[in-house]
């Protein structure tokens, strides 16, 4: 053996053990070399890792450890000194690096650890956020539910739909077991179960409103948790042990449609309904705040919707009522129009149809009157005429009354002969009174003006009505008519307290009193007399015709004439006095205006008066002359009388409009007088009209008269009416067409 610088191995070479060591070192070295490679590879891959320097150190440390172990492989056998030196160098380096690394790691590892805790923290946070996200999502969903519920509630104005929808949607949203609504009864002392979701409780069940739990709920506008055992939260015993939590909230019942946001008005009548919500039993669910808030919001919305629904209901009801009333009113209006039209048609028909025969009767009776009649016949004809005139009056009465009611009647104001009017009334009433053997007296006061301005026809109507009534209701005795001018002291009559006559210079008040000796009137019946169509039973005799309209019409006419009318009676059987006062204008004579007078017998256009008409009367018989003169003077003419033909020719002038000649005048032949008159007046319009008065109407006389140019022949005796119509015809036509 050579002396070599070999190092003897530590222990004797045990073949197996050495072999194992040899292999392990080999593998360790391998691992030590590959680990840094892996590290480098992965570090290169990840950009994030902040401690590269540490890795390098670590790598170096590992490499050197590997190198050490590798070199260790050579030491198992005899090895040279170099190997030993390298081995030692490697070991030294390794020691250095590993110490450095150890020192380095002291800095690093807390950091690494803190990263870990942060990671854990973040994970927890992420989990929490997830949870909260879930919650928010749920809330969002419930919010959507609320909006939808509100929309559903507010989209309908039907109360039941509102409430049902509320319960259904709430039940769905909050997954309730039961949801119930209790409404106050009409009396307000009880709450009645009105709506339920799942019908666990019977509808119609009531609880008194004064329960403490209910008061508690009503006293706040928040949703209140109540005990599941309270009467409002009762349920059918369902065998479950743990009933779910119950919440109740008040629902204000309002009738206001204007709600300011967050500004609920203070309610004077606080009526509430109760909404009770029950969570499912045997679930661990609890009421969450957001759910309570949801419930409160829904309760408010329901309140609003209900009030709207109530208002709408009311307005619909009012509208229906109005429509019904409208229909009824329309019908009534149409009926009234029909009635008015029917009445007008009836009046028009009556006007025409009834007047036509009346006209015929009156006309023919008047004509009959003018023919030769015996006195009895004359009386009969006069009665016919008067009666038919009264009937015509009645027809006119009814028409007048209808026009009076319409307010369409106007007075026909004009000048008229007041005295004449009374006389005419007298003439008209005399026949009837004489039939009943009643006397009629007329007394006109001396200061009563002869002419007045007013509605003659209506005044006549009033007079005829009153006098007619007086005659009608008197069986014996008579009627006395008196007329005078009312003086100021007698103007205010205690029996006419509403009557305030104001006399003036242009007007005077005519006061007429008609006293009869008839059956009288019960003082209690007097007010009724002026009512239309009312006839007191005691007054109605079997002879009383008439419709009962007369006095009513009189009253209206009198009122139109600014007057007053009343009746007095001392009682039944004691007669009756009718008094009326009317305002008339003071009129002058009728010279200025010759107003034609429509006489009651509408035969011809007959003048009533011929004021100032200059007439010459030739008659040799004094009496006859006087009578004719009186006749003409009565008609208002200015009469000159002559007793012979000569005087006649001397007196006649172109001022005279008519010359009446009595045929039996001796001396100058009357026919010659006529001829002479013709000669005297060459122009036609200058010449007076010549009329012969004769008791003889044979054809010869007539022809002779007409041959000499006479304008007419009149048969004696001449009545006032006849003379009137003669003069009318002469003045209208200039000739007498018929021999009168």
């Amino acid at each position, binding site marked *: 053996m050579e002396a070599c610088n070999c190092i003897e191995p530590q222990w004797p070479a045990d073949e197996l053990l050495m072999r194992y060591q040899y292999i392990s070192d080999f593998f360790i070295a391998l691992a030590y070399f590959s680990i840094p490679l892996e590290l480098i590879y992965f570090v290169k891959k990840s950009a994030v890792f902040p401690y590269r320097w540490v890795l390098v150190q670590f790598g170096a440390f590992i490499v050197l450890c590997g190198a050490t172990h590798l070199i260790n492989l050579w030491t198992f056998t005899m090895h040279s000194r170099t190997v030993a030196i390298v081995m030692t160098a490697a070991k030294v380096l390794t020691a250095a690096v590993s110490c450095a690394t150890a020192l380095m790691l002291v800095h690093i590892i807390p950091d690494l650890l803190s990263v870990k805790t942060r990671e854990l923290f973040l994970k927890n946070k992420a989990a929490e956020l997830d949870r909260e996200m879930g919650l928010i999502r749920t809330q969002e969903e419930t919010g959507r539910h609320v909006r939808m519920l509100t929309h559903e509630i507010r989209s309908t104005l039907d109360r039941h739909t509102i409430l049902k929808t509320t319960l259904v949607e709430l039940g769905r949203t909050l997954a309730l077991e039961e949801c119930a609504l209790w409404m106050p009864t009409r009396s307000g002392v009880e709450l009645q179960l009105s709506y339920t979701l799942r019908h666990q409780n019977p509808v119609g069940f009531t609880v008194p409103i004064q329960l403490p739990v209910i008061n508690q709920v009503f006293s706040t506008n928040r949703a209140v948790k109540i005990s599941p055992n309270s009467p409002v939260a009762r349920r059918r015993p369902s065998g479950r042990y743990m009933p779910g939590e119950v919440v109740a909230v008040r629902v204000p019942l309002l009738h206001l449609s204007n709600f300011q946001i967050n500004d609920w008005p203070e309610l004077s009548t606080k009526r509430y309904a109760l909404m009770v919500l029950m969570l499912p039993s045997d679930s661990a669910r609890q009421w969450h705040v957001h759910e309570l808030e949801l419930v409160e919001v829904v309760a408010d919305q329901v309140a609003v919707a209900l009030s709207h629904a109530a208002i709408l209901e009311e307005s619909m009801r009012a509208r229906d009522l109005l429509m019904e009333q409208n229909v009824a009113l329309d019908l009534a209006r149409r009926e009234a129009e029909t009635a008015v039209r029917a009445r007008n048609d009836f009046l028009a028909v009556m006007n025409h149809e009834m007047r036509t025969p009346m006209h015929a009767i009156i006309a023919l009776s008047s004509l009959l009157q003018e023919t030769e009649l015996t006195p009895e016949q004359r009386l009969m004809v006069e009665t016919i005429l008067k009666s038919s005139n009264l009937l015509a009056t009645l027809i006119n009465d009814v028409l007048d009354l209808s026009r009076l009611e319409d307010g369409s009647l106007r007075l026909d104001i004009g000048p008229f002969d007041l005295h004449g009017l009374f006389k005419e009334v007298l003439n008209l009433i005399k026949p009837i009174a004489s039939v009943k053997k009643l*006397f009629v007296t007329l007394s006109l006061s001396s200061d009563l003006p002869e002419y007045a301005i007013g509605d003659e026809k209506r005044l006549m109507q009033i007079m005829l009505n009153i006098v007619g009534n007086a005659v009608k209701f008197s069986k014996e005795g008579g009627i006395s008519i008196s007329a005078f001018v009312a003086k100021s002291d007698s103007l205010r009559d205690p029996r006419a307290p509403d009557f305030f006559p104001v006399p003036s210079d242009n007007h005077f008040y005519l006061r007429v009193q008609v006293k009869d000796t008839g059956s009288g009137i019960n003082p209690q019946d007097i007010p009724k007399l002026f009512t239309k169509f009312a006839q007191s039973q005691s007054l109605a005799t079997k002879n009383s015709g008439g419709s009962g309209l007369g006095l009513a019409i009189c009253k209206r006419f009198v009122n139109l004439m600014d007057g007053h009318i009343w009746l007095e009676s001392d009682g039944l059987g004691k007669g009756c006095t009718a008094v009326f006062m009317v305002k008339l204008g003071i009129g002058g004579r009728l010279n200025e205006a010759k107003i034609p007078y429509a006489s009651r017998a509408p035969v011809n256009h007959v003048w009533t008066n011929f004021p100032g008409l200059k007439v010459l009367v030739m008659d040799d018989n*004094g*009496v006859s002359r006087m*009578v004719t003169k009186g006749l003409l003077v009565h008609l208002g003419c200015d009469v000159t009388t002559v007793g012979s033909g000569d005087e006649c020719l001397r007196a006649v002038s172109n001022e005279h409009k008519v010359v009446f000649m*009595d045929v*039996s005048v001796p001396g100058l032949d009357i026919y010659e007088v006529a001829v002479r008159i013709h000669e005297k007046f060459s122009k036609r319009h200058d010449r007076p009209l010549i009329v012969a008065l004769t008791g003889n109407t044979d054809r010869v006389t007539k022809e002779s008269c007409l041959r000499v140019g006479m304008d007419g022949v009149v048969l004696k*005796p001449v009545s006032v009416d006849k003379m009137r119509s003669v003069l009318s015809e002469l003045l209208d036509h200039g000739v007498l067409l018929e021999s009168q």
Partner: protein
Amino acid sequence: MDGVIQLQRQLVDYTTSLYKEGFLDDQFKQLQQLQDESNPDFVIEVVYLFFEDSERLLNELSKTLNQQNVDFKKVDAHVHQLKGSSSSIGAQRVQNVCIAFRNYCEEQNSEGCLKCLQLIKHEYSLVKNKLETMFKLEKQVLVAGGSIPMH
């Protein structure tokens, strides 16, 4: 008031009887109609005129008829006048006699005429009495404060 009514009734009854008995006819009514405020005494005036006229005529008639040679024309004229007057008044009966008288005149029957004259005188005095009574009654009524009933 009752007294007046009584008088009025009396007057009315009387007047009615005159008409019924034919003393007066419708013409008298016509005369009464002509009486009014402007002519308050028309009837009386006419009636008295008639009285005057008739008396005169009757005297003339007596004279004429009592002559030897009766002038029938004159008689006729007078009677005609009387007839006219009485018809104007409405003295019916007088008028009727006048008509008969005229017939006799035409026949120139003096016997008949004289008889008629007597008759006329009689009728005339009758109607005169009646009318005067009537006027008296009217006056009484007026004095008592009533008014003349017209019918």
